[in-house]
């Protein structure tokens, strides 16, 4: 076993925190420009996201859906399959969960929840089967197909919600699900619910798949070098299909969590882009479930703290996405790798100068 290199670790932490500080500094300037006090604003953000039980719970709540979409995307991205359709798969999964939630009646709670999630898993997976099969059988670019199918999924659920299962309550939502299909909350004053536990379980499962199973090994190999994977007997065509389906299943679970834990019905257009956030999170977390948990938590803090900042200080909503964008910029950079290049380049320039 390699011994722990504290210098290396502290360097890592330093380079992780540096960009965040930088982004917040730029953010502070913009806060001043918009006529607010940055200390007050960031204070509100910090308190809203981290201080007190309900604040912490709300942060975890905000990170719940993106943990799962992040995992869904990581499974595909790690195999170099660009599943950009997690958003759409999540919508259909959510709808399936809602459908089972309001049609089946009189079931015991746990069973009902499990059935709802299963439905979401199946539907999410089936929807991802389309780009999977097209990729696996005809080599059709999965990125294009999934982008296109997102639109189809959203339109389809819109239609089903508005015309087939319309609640008649005046807004684009289906009938409410049965109480037995609810994912219970942990406390009354926070929306955090069992969906978070499910997200954690999914992270563990994905971690296990990546690390200990044949599928995980093959995902890694396919991601690094398809020809190698094929030559070492991984049947990449079928694997592409399977990987897309697994990714779609996870997306379905993300949707089910929202329906069963938050809205308790399907609301048309409920997602503010969890699928896209998941993409950033998967990449920031380097397709690693632990990294994804950390990145999602960070996003949760930003989102939850951001809304407190608006509520308490009145900082415009758009500023929060600016800060978010800035932080992502800085985090996108692999500082540890670039650092060496940067330093050696500096040295080289220095040497050249000295020599004249």
């Amino acid at each position, binding site marked *: 076993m390699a011994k722990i290199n504290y210098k290396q670790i502290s360097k890592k932490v330093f380079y992780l925190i540096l960009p965040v500080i930088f982004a917040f500094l730029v953010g502070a300037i913009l806060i001043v420009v918009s006529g607010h006090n940055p200390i007050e604003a960031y204070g509100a953000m910090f308190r809203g996201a981290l201080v007190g039980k309900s604040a912490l719970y709300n942060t975890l709540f905000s990170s719940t859906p993106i943990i799962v979409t992040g995992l869904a995307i990581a499974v595909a991205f790690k195999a170099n399959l660009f599943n950009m359709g997690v958003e759409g798969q999540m919508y259909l999964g959510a709808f399936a969960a809602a459908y089972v939630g309001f049609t089946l009646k009189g079931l015991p709670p746990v069973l009902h929840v499990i059935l709802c999630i299963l439905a979401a898993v199946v539907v999410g997976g089936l929807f991802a089967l389309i780009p999977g099969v097209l990729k696996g059988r005809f080599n059709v670019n999965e990125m294009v197909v999934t982008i296109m199918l997102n639109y189809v999924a959203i339109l389809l659920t819109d239609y089903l919600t508005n015309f087939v299962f319309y609640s008649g309550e005046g807004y684009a939502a289906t009938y409410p699900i049965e109480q037995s299909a609810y994912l219970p909350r942990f406390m009354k004053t926070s929306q955090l619910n069992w969906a978070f536990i499910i997200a954690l379980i999914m992270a563990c499962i994905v971690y296990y798949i990546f690390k200990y199973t044949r599928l995980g090994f093959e995902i890694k190999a396919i991601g690094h070098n398809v020809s190698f994977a094929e030559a070492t007997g991984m*049947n990449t065509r079928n694997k592409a299909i399977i990987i897309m389906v697994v990714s779609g299943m996870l997306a379905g679970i993300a949707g089910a969590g929202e329906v069963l834990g938050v809205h308790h019905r399907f609301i048309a257009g409920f997602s503010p882009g969890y699928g896209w956030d998941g993409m*950033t999170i998967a990449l920031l977390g380097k397709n690693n479930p632990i990294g994804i948990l950390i990145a999602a938590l960070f996003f949760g803090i930003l989102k939850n703290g951001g809304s407190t900042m608006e509520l308490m200080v009145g900082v415009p909503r758009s500023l929060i*996405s600016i800060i978010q964008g800035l932080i992502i910029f800085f985090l996108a950079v692999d500082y540890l790798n670039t650092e060496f290049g940067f330093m050696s380049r500096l040295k080289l320039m220095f040497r050249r100068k000295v020599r004249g």
Partner: protein
Amino acid sequence: MLEAILHTSLRMATPIVLAALGGLFTHKANVLNIALEGMMLMGAFAGVLASFATGNIFIAIIAAIFASMLFALLFNVFGITLKGNFIITGLAVNIFAAGLTSFVLQVAFGRRGVFSDPKIVGTTPVHIDFLDKIPFIGPIINDHSPMVYVSILIAIAVYFVLNHTKYGIYVRAVGENEEAAKAIGIKVNRIKYSTVYISAILCALAGVNLSLGNLTMFVENMTNGRGFIALAAIFCGRGTTLGTYVFSFLFGFADSIQLRLQNLNIPGTFVQMIPFIFIVVVLSIVGAIRMIGNLDRGIKDE
């Protein structure tokens, strides 16, 4: 009827064509540019602001290009110099652009959502007399905003640059085998930078076409996913200039058909799916045909 549909298609396709042609450069240099959307939005926004401030469409275009290039600079610094991940950097550009446009509207102009004003000058459609004499084709390509003609010229220019100039060869060499390009002394990063700047310029034009060509206003997030459609068009067209153009046009075409079908009282939702399903079907058919007689196993990296 067909003439009218094609006329509309051409107009609706133009922003996608421009953005896709821009994205084609980065695609060729093997830089996945998800930021098309954000750059386009910045272009649309800066164009409207400059037009509002000066009343001059040329200044508006230059401002749009400038703003879009600033974002390209961000993309380059973080994505290429600092070796960040292209997808994340691109997404960050998009989030940042959306945030910044509405922030500036709100803080500097005290407006929200929509920015329209009689002072904003747009482009006026061009009528070319001699086109009247050509049946069928004439009515399709006549009476468009100048940007539509510019986009056709740009398509030809892009074809020429990519296939017949030194620069084009370098871009392709960098995209296909970076090591080979490096080994011969081509400044790989400089080429990559430049492709991002070119895509920013064309995205700016696409944005201006949206906000000042078809309309004279800015609406928050008015690009509405066109950047992603452009990206899809590049992939559908397999990275060729003609293919990219054709597929961008097909998107416009399918969309304008869809608009017309809606008025025939067919349920709206399903009609609206047409463009997206259409593309998937076309790609599947093309893919299936390509697979005939294929002997290799395994999926391919494209």
